[in-house]
């Protein structure tokens, strides 16, 4: 039998706010345990939650970015359960009425094997605001478990998809697209290592052609795309094998073990809590007006799809170039900064996606930590355009700048890379070359085009690479035709 895997994602994105979702405590990562736990984070008797307006703006931004319904009235609810890292004994979340309703995200699934690259629309069911829990710390004190409540109350937007994905590749393409989008609109720093972007993946399988959903298992807390691929592939194989062996899938929550590459059931749904959701009486319903939306809209950055279209129209870039440049906010910002500094668009696109990206990749660096700024790159490209240096020399300058050897012009001077553009001097060199290579001249005149390139090569060599190649071409052509 041929099987089909059905995948839906729930993603917890930590919102980039200054303070927690229901208190003024800082959300900075990595502080000493419990130094960012105020009375509210500790759930002392008598404390009350006050909603962080910045978190609401983040939710509105996301809703606008995916063209979703934004609820004019949504409700915070209490999800009740006991756990040591949950100080109130309930989590404030949204249940029946979430802030963001149905929307959609278009993903690009890369080519693989015989499959060409393709686009697909993933439907978003909802996104809701909620608070994060703290962390249990084991082993810090011998024989004891500790609780760190620094993270308790950190604002999260949980984004839930329809079961629209049909492969690990689609799920990862969606997760990557979402990862870029939330960073693009500035609501999440996207740091997966620090837990700012965590995915729970619901996986089920069914006979291909069936329209009934199989029983799902939920893989919790995947914090890298690589693990997500491995986990989904393992889980899919496991479910198919189980069914083919005549077994049944039990609804369950599973964890992925990166060391073994396997998924393992954590708890079955029969043992699941009854969370006793009810509207939180400490918080008023969240009301979002058309004016609120308009105000957030006015501060929205241009979205990737719109920017891609603009780059194609404004700078005559290819669809491929425009798509690549808008794959991340950092990349797009870098590109635009270089353009603003006077660089030529197509050339900039080539360099950003060529030399710069390659260098960043090889050193495992982000654009944000690039040793060469957009302005420096623009200066370098200008020196190519104005004939000061050749493309080859530019590569040497690039390497030197990468190593921090200085600014474009000082490196050109220090390395003597300025090309010869004095036509008198170039003529003199060419005359010498023609005199010394009479045989080649004859070959050219006899119709051998290749001989021309050889003569250019000789001239460049004679100038120690400094002659402006375009001028060499022009002068040589004139002399040969004379």
């Amino acid at each position: 039998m041929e099987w089909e895997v059905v995948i839906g994602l729930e993603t917890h994105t930590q919102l980039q706010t200054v303070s927690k979702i229901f208190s003024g405590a800082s959300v900075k990562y990595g502080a000493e345990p419990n130094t960012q736990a105020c009375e509210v984070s500790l759930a002392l008797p008598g404390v009350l939650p006050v909603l962080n307006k910045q978190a609401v703006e983040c939710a509105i931004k996301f809703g606008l970015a995916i063209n979703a319904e934004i609820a004019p009235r949504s409700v915070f609810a209490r999800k009740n359960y006991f756990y040591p890292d949950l100080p109130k004994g309930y989590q404030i979340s949204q249940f029946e009425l979430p802030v963001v309703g149905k929307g959609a995200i278009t993903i690009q699934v890369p080519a693989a094997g015989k499959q060409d690259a393709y686009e697909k629309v993933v439907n978003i069911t909802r996104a809701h605001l909620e608070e994060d829990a703290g962390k249990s710390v084991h082993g810090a004190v011998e024989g004891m478990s500790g609780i760190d409540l620094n993270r308790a109350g950190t604002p999260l937007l949980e984004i839930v998809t329809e079961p629209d994905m049909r492969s690990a590749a689609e799920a990862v393409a969606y997760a990557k697209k979402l990862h870029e989008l939330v960073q693009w609109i500035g609501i999440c720093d996207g740091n997966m290592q620090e837990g700012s972007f965590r995915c729970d993946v619901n996986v089920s399988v069914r006979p291909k052609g069936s329209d009934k959903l199989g029983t799902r298992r939920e893989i919790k807390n995947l914090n890298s795309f690589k693990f997500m691929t491995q986990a989904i592939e393992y889980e899919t194989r496991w479910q198919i094998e189980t069914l083919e062996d005549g077994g049944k899938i039990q609804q369950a929550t599973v964890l992925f073990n990166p060391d073994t590459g396997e998924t393992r059931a954590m708890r079955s749904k029969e043992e699941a809590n009854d969370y006793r959701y009810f509207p939180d009486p400490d918080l008023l319903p969240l009301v979002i007006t058309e004016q609120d939306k308009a105000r957030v809209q006015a501060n929205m950055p241009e979205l990737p799809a719109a920017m891609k279209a603009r780059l194609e129209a404004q700078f005559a870039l290819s669809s491929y170039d425009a798509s690549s440049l808008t794959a991340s906010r950092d990349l797009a910002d870098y590109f635009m900064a270089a353009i603003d500094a006077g660089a030529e668009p197509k050339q900039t696109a080539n360099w950003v996606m060529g030399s710069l990206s390659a260098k960043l990749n090889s050193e495992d660096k982000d654009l944000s930590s690039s040793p060469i700024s957009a302005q420096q790159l623009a200066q370098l490209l200008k020196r190519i355009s104005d004939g000061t240096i050749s493309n080859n020399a530019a590569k040497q300058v690039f390497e030197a700048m990468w190593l921090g050897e200085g600014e474009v012009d000082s490196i050109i001077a220090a390395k003597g890379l300025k090309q010869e553009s004095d036509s008198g001097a170039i003529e003199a060199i060419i005359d010498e070359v023609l005199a010394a290579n009479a045989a080649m001249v004859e070959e050219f005149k006899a119709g051998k085009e290749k001989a021309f390139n050889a003569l250019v090569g000789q001239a460049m060599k004679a100038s120690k690479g400094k002659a402006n190649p375009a001028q060499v071409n022009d002068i040589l052509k004139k002399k040969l035709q004379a």
Partner: protein
Amino acid sequence: MANSELTNGSLKAYAQLLQSKQISSLELTQAFLQRIKQYNPSINAYIALDEDKTLAQARAADARIAAGSAAPLTGIPIAQKDIFCAKGWPTTCGSKMLANFVAPYDAHVISQFDAAGAVNLGKTNMDEFAMGSSNETSYFGGVKNPWSFDRVPGGSSGGSAAAVAARLCAAATGTDTGGSIRQPASLCGFTGLKPTYGVVSRFGMIAFASSLDQAGPMAKSAEDCALMMNVMAGFDERDSTSLDRAKEDYCRDLNKPLAGLKIGLPKEFFAEGLSAEVGQVIENAIAEYKKLGAEIVNISLPNTGLSIPVYYVLAPAEASSNLSRYDGVRYGHRAAEYTDLMDMYCKSRAEGFGAEVKRRILIGTYVLSAGYYDAYYLKAQQIRRLIAQDFVEAFKQCDVIMGPAAPSTAFKAGEKVDDPVAMYLQDIYTISTNLAGLPGMSVPAGFASSQDGPALPVGLQIIGNYFDEARMLNVAHQYQQVTDWHTLAPNLPEGKA
């Protein structure tokens, strides 16, 4: 001035004495502390006293008065219900669960009194987590009704009630979720006001049922309550349900005449369940209002009978969640020995909570459970709106609503502890205003004799429309200008000299 006279003054009189420097706050405070030493061991109104802290505040108040920057309550000693977090004070909410908890921050109400220069005399006893109508669920023992020591003072603000009645404070704070200010005010014979929901910030007030809890003053007269409200009320951004309204002077209408006032009498408040003696006292009070020029309108609040069942779904539902934080992990009681996490939770909560609190946690957990939520919690919310709608209709016909605050006078300690439903019926006339979010008050209106004991105080309940506290205080104050029930204080049996 004799000690007993000094502790029997009005807030206005204290303010005059203090600001004209006829007495110092230190003297006044010491007079109350002396009286507390004498009577508290038998009455048990206070469960935390800290003379050093209290006297330091009195000295600071004297300095403020000397500097000429006194506010109306500067230097006046106030008792605080132990439901309010007060920095450096034990804050127990009447529970073993919090017996060892010292608050590291101030509730809004506490900081308002501090800013006014009032003196905190101590923390008063209360039913555990404000769950009770007799103060008998307190981990720290019951409180005696100063009018008759074999009787309960009512609850849950029983300690504050006894402290006001026995003149162990100039005035006190209370909280009212279903009647916890008004029922004890009725049973102990003083004036108590539960404001409109959202008028006094709940920040730092330990939650019982968040959508119903409201703090208010407990004092000797309507005028005293108005002065207390001027300190307690006001917007606080730390409570999302606090209402952002302009600050008002609750004394502004006290002296308005009542001619033409329309008083609504709901027939449901004078039906079966009301003691005949209490009913008579209320009728006498209504007759007094007629003399003052008020008109009587007969009205109906048809859903009144549903208020107790609705309340005992919604309040426990919220409480079951509000009390989840008491888990023994971060503060409060933790069992001495346990085998694992679940065992620690179970033992700590089993040991830390009393029977009534456990009963309500169980009810609340049940009504919120999957499969029961719609039938109980949602249905109760729907009826809650009907009850509120009853009042909207009623206030189209009248300015204020009157009736009894409690169905009987103070009952004997132990009489109802084994019959929770009988205890719950104590709040039959008060609960509907909490469900509707309306303000209500209880005003001393006379005494009803009982078969097996002395005549005991009866409170007249006045219910106003939303934000109509100033008018209610006016209505009560005018009554107190022509009656002297509110001036009567119990003769206390010899205390520890």
